[in-house]
């Protein structure tokens, strides 16, 4: 059902430690912890001491993410229950950050998108944030009709949580809203709604 080749579809180039950064902030969910482990294989010895982890305890396979990260010796690991609470803390951290701070985001797409959106609000270029997608394919979807946001979308089409229209989830992405765009699927033939598929598990 997805249209291929939509240019706004985000591309995640993978986590890589910037060894010149004086301070690193890594935002990860439980699934993203594996990507953090992989990145640390490329880091120098002093990297963990320059690094703060904002851990969002969602996603993952049941293993306690804190246990995965603790042995690596990061300067701080701050733990949060949701993406919203983690990005709220990120926002506060970026308020006082300097240009030598590098930002990393890994885990689900809604997490990465929220981090990028927060970064943009602080004048960080989106492409200077290192990103790696891990775990669930779930999406945050904005209904182009009522502008309401529907979280944790795993199916296509999906019912808008706000106006109730059935939306086709497109690859068309907005960095500013950190959301994929959902468009009414039966606009031309009301009631003709194709079978719902679990496209974003």
């Amino acid at each position, binding site marked *: 059902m997805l249209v291929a080749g939509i240019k706004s579809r985000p591309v995640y180039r993978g986590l890589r430690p*910037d060894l*010149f*950064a*004086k*301070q690193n902030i890594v935002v990860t969910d439980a699934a993203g912890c594996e990507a953090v482990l992989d990145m640390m294989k490329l880091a120098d010895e002093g990297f963990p001491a320059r690094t703060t982890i904002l851990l969002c305890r969602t996603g993952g396979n049941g293993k306690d993410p804190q246990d995965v990260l603790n042995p690596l010796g990061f300067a701080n690991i701050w733990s949060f229950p949701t993406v919203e609470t983690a990005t709220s803390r990120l926002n506060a951290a*970026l308020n006082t*950050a*300097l*240009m*030598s*701070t*590098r930002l990393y985001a890994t885990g689900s797409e809604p997490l990465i998108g929220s981090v990028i959106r927060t970064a*943009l609000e*602080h*004048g*960080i*270029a989106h*492409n*200077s944030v290192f990103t790696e997608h891990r775990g669930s394919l779930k999406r945050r979807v904005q209904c182009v009709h009522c502008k309401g946001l529907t979280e944790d979308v795993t199916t296509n089409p999906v019912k808008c949580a706000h106006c109730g229209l059935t939306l086709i989830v497109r690859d068309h992405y907005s960095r500013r809203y950190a959301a994929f765009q959902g468009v009414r699927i039966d606009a031309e033939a009301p009631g003709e709604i194709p079978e719902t598929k679990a496209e974003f598990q």
Partner: protein
Amino acid sequence: MTMRNQRLVRVESIERVASQIKRFHFAPIDDAALPCFSAGAHVIVTMRKGDAVYRNPYSLMSSPLDPRRYSISVLRVAESRGGSVHMHENVEVGEVLEISDPLNLFPIAHTARKHILIAGGIGITPFMAMLAQFRNDKSHFELHYAVRSPEDGAYFKALEAEGLPGVRLYRSDRGERIALNAILQNQRLGTHVYVCGPQRMIDWALETAKLEGWPDENVHSEHFSVPTPGNPFVVKLATSGKEIHVGEHQSILEALEQAGVDAPYLCRGGACGQCITRITNTEGGAVHHNDHYLTDEEKKEGDRIATCVSRMDGGCLTLDL
């Protein structure tokens, strides 16, 4: 393939602004306004000296808010091929010159919270246009401008007399240096740095920014090279089979144009990469890369060349044209 519209302008006034630098004001030849431009843009000026045609890029330094004229500053480079010397010695007030429409390869990052401008010598020119824009927009900026001496630096005395907050001036004849490490260390997120000046200043600034942990996305530089003279050589065109002689003081691009080949270009200063052409064969000489576009690895590979500034030192070069 020539993508830039050309237009005629009249030289409205010429003023010496430093020992080796002259400022030229250009006005439209009719009542039609000049196209608007953004700060950081340049134009290419066509200079005809006998049979030879030179086209050099110069940054626009006038205010982008003033559509009535364009201004450029030209540093006289005695040991070059003669473009700048021609501008200094032969071009007079009232003369009509051919220029390209403006193109910006060094734009202001408009999402920036703060702008830091690092200028050396003639590198001040694009920043004069940026200053006008920043003052109009009430943007947060710093300018750090280094010159050999006040006599050598264009607009140095004027900037000194103006005493604008945020403008810092440095004289190397007094041993003053831009403390770039300290400047870059304490900048808040959302700051952008721009460098324009001699190549070694740009290299130093880019390296310093990297070591201070700045991301590439926030570091901008511009430097126009001029084609360096060298031994004449022959360019063969793989598709058309043409053989073109490139003279001692000519660039490949100029020789191609003289032979009626419509080759791609945009900046003519080795900055934009538009003229990069595939090399299919070289014989009897080495390729000398003078551009700032190809990476060191790409230059080493030697399968591509920036025809506007790079050349062979004798021998024969076959291009995929």
